[in-house]
């Protein structure tokens, strides 16, 4: 940050600078107040304390006053400190399978990126299919989506951004003016968002949700089951996305020759496919296959970690290569969120909150799913999708009990929409990256993103109500 002297009146500067202190003092006071009020009917003392902790964490997650991971650590501190769960139980929940699955997925994705395999695949697909403007748009869109099936959508967006940016520059597209430039970056962002919800691998939010479900109810969702349930949503949204991308911003160019040349040059520079790329690709393929076939029996985390060990045994990566791809903050955040969610569930607080809030509006399972999916879609635009899950899922699981619903339905109703953030740059790094290109403005992103968000909510509810019963997920 360049040096700047704040010349506003000192009282104003002081007030602004004190805001943080005042915020935390107020939060501490509110927390103390919540701990001292008499226990409401139907709630235990532990439940009341769990709700107080939940409110503190909710505020911190939403405001981002401290990093998400630190809020989670606070939850892990407060849960045993205020007697919601014993200390040893709290920490054992933190060591949840989902946390290790996420760790394994990070390392696998890191290995794929570090080996250059993902970059090669991206360039090869663009070279093969991107010969005309529309084909190039769709290549980027589907490439982002398909890659996000296998690795974090954030990583895909970060990996493809420089390539797409160079294409835009190579074609001489004017930032903020060129429709083709806008669509290029929109296709990147939307592809990542839509593809990111297709499997457990698109982001850590689904493993987080499944981890919370398992800790709270003992039930789980396996890799294949999830993908089968969600894939129609992905297909429909890809179709809707294709139509909107090609219709909303009329493309002004007719030739992508310069970009194709650029891609060909880049691909040439990458050289021949290496042993490491083959081997990493092989490990990834076997891992995904194992998740789909024996994941439920062996455990997703076990497979992920075994794949990680294999990467190192085969000397395909070094630890220092991988470290930069492992987001320890996210891992801590998820561990803490699972702990807090479990504390809410086991103390009975989640069910109580659900009954007192959404329980009053819900008229049946379909309405509950509609409400939760809508709330999730709205919240995920403003706050971290993991935070949305941490906030809503414990309440949702509590709600399932009230309507005798399978809690896995609620898990889907929150985990899937949590990834469908199309409208704001702060909602997901893919959108932020698209806006950072300066080819598309926030206003334009919001304008078209709202259409996608609303459509995704409708599609999700249609799939939930008409497709899930067909696959036995919703046995009504």
């Amino acid at each position, binding site marked *: *940050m*360049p*040096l*700047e*002297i*704040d*010349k506003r009146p*000192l009282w104003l*500067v*002081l007030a602004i*600078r004190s805001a943080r202190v005042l915020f935390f003092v107020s939060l501490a006071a509110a927390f103390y107040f919540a701990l001292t009020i008499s226990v409401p009917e139907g709630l235990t003392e532990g439940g009341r304390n769990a709700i107080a902790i939940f409110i503190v964490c909710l505020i911190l997650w939403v405001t981002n006053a401290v990093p998400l991971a630190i809020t989670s650590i606070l939850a892990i501190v407060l849960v045993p400190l205020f007697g919601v769960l014993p200390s040893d139980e709290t920490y054992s929940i933190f060591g949840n399978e989902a946390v290790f699955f996420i760790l394994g997925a990070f390392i696998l994705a890191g290995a794929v990126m570090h080996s250059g395999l993902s970059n090669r695949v991206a360039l090869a697909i663009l070279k093969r299919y991107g010969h005309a403007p529309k084909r190039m748009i769709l290549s980027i869109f589907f490439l982002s989506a398909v890659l996000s099936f296998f690795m974090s959508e954030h990583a895909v967006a970060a990996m493809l951004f420089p390539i797409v940016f160079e294409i835009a520059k190579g074609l001489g597209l004017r930032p903020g003016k060129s429709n083709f430039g806008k669509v290029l970056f929109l296709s990147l962002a939307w592809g990542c968002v839509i593809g990111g919800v297709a499997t457990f691998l698109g982001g850590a939010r689904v493993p987080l949700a499944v981890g919370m479900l398992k800790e709270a109810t003992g039930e789980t969702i396996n890799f294949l089951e999830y993908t089968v349930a969600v894939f129609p949503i992905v297909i429909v949204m890809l179709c809707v996305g294709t139509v909107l991308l090609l219709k909303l911003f009329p493309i002004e160019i007719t030739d992508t020759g310069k970009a194709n040349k650029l891609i060909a040059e880049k691909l040439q520079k990458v050289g021949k496919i290496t042993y490491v790329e083959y081997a990493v690709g092989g490990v990834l393929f076997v891992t995904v296959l194992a998740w789909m076939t024996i994941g439920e029996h062996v455990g997703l985390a076990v497979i992920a970690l075994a794949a990680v060990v294999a990467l190192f045994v085969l000397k395909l990566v070094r630890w220092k290569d991988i470290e930069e791809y492992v987001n320890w903050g996210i891992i801590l955040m998820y561990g803490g969120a699972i702990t807090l969610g479990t504390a809410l569930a086991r103390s009975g607080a989640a069910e109580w909150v659900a009954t007192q809030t959404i329980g009053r509006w819900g008229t049946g399972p379909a309405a509950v799913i509609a409400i939760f999916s809508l709330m999730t879609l709205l919240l995920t635009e403003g706050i971290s999708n993991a935070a949305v899950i941490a906030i809503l899922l414990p309440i949702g699981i509590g709600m399932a009990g009230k309507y005798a619903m399978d809690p896995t339905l609620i898990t889907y109703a929150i985990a899937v929409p949590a990834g469908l953030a199309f409208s704001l740059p702060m909602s997901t790094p893919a959108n932020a990256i698209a806006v950072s290109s300066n080819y598309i403005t926030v206003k334009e992103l919001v304008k078209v993103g709202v259409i996608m968000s609303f459509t995704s909510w409708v599609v999700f509810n249609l799939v939930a109500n008409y497709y899930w019963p067909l696959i036995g997920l919703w046995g009504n």
Partner: protein
Amino acid sequence: MWEDFLIWKSYLDNPGTLKIDLMLRGIRIADPVHSISCADSSIDLVLPDGILANVPCCEPYTEASLYVLKENHDGGYVIGDGTAEVPVQLIEKPDFLSGQTKSGVPFSDIAELHGSYVVISPASGCEFFNEGIECSYCSGGFDTDEASKVFSVDDVLEVVEAVKKAKAAEIVYLSIGFSKGADGGIKFLTPYIQAIKKFFNVIVAVEALPPKRNHWIDHTYAVGADSVLYNLEIYDKELFELICPGRAGLIGRNRYLNALKYAATVFPSGTVASHLIVGLEPPGSTNKGIDCLTDMGVVPILPIYRPRPGKALGIDPLTTEIIIPVYRHLYKTVRDKNINMNWVSDISVLTTPLEGRNLLDDPEGGNIFESFYRSKLGKKTAWGLSSIRRKLRVRGKAFTVKGDD
């Protein structure tokens, strides 16, 4: 009436006027006091009401002074003018100044004490001298032989530590002559300021040249300077160009005024100051300078011009009678424009705006805040508040500016 005139002319009963008259005339020192005190060209005295004065005692003109410093019967000191005497305290040269740094530099080469200030010049050069465009009145030891003398940060820290241990001063005044960079010398002073601020709880004032761009003023504040002085010296445009060709040609009067104006928006009230030397221009011009500077929130500081050996400008020093109204105007203007006067106080080498209060026909008393700020606790409080203000005001890190622009 005649008695009033005599008392007024004697100046002894008003320490404010006495300080001015003493600085103009100097003082003779009677034996045996002479042998113990006038080792340098001047002595520091505490006049009645605690007013500090640095009085010339060795210059030739002092031999004609009507003032004599002598020891009285109880071992104290008095100043007499032939008609009356007033008790004073003699501030002896502190022992620590006879020490030296680990690298062998005498402390007295690095620092001078002026009341509650210790003045440190980490580099003794001034490029104006090298180019022959120095200010005509200046004999400041900035000759070319000395120009290369630069004291290390460690040496300066040792001096400040000694000053703190001897409780000799609360304010460190870092001074630098002209250098060719665009930063006005602040780039050079930065490591000294930062080191002093890191190790000692003292107020640091910086006397430098106005930088070419304002971001260096931001930088000056950000790195820890509590007060800054860009000395215009002469307000009258033509006299400024004539007497200070270097300042006028390489910096320019407008840049002085603009830099001071900007600095007053960055630093706290009363901490941005500029010298206007009384006697180098007509009093009316000095008064205009006072009005202009105070309009910008800058504190004018008025040293008195005395010709130095070999530096005669052909300008006779003004008399006390002519100077007093200028100081009165200074006090009233600074007071009326609500500029904090407490930062510039307790300096022996010049009359501060606050001391101008003693020159009013009906002198005003000091308030409780003034007494507080002059106390050690007050100085510590000022330091603390200044540090808090800096923390609130400064965003980002200093030295993020690149290059020399």
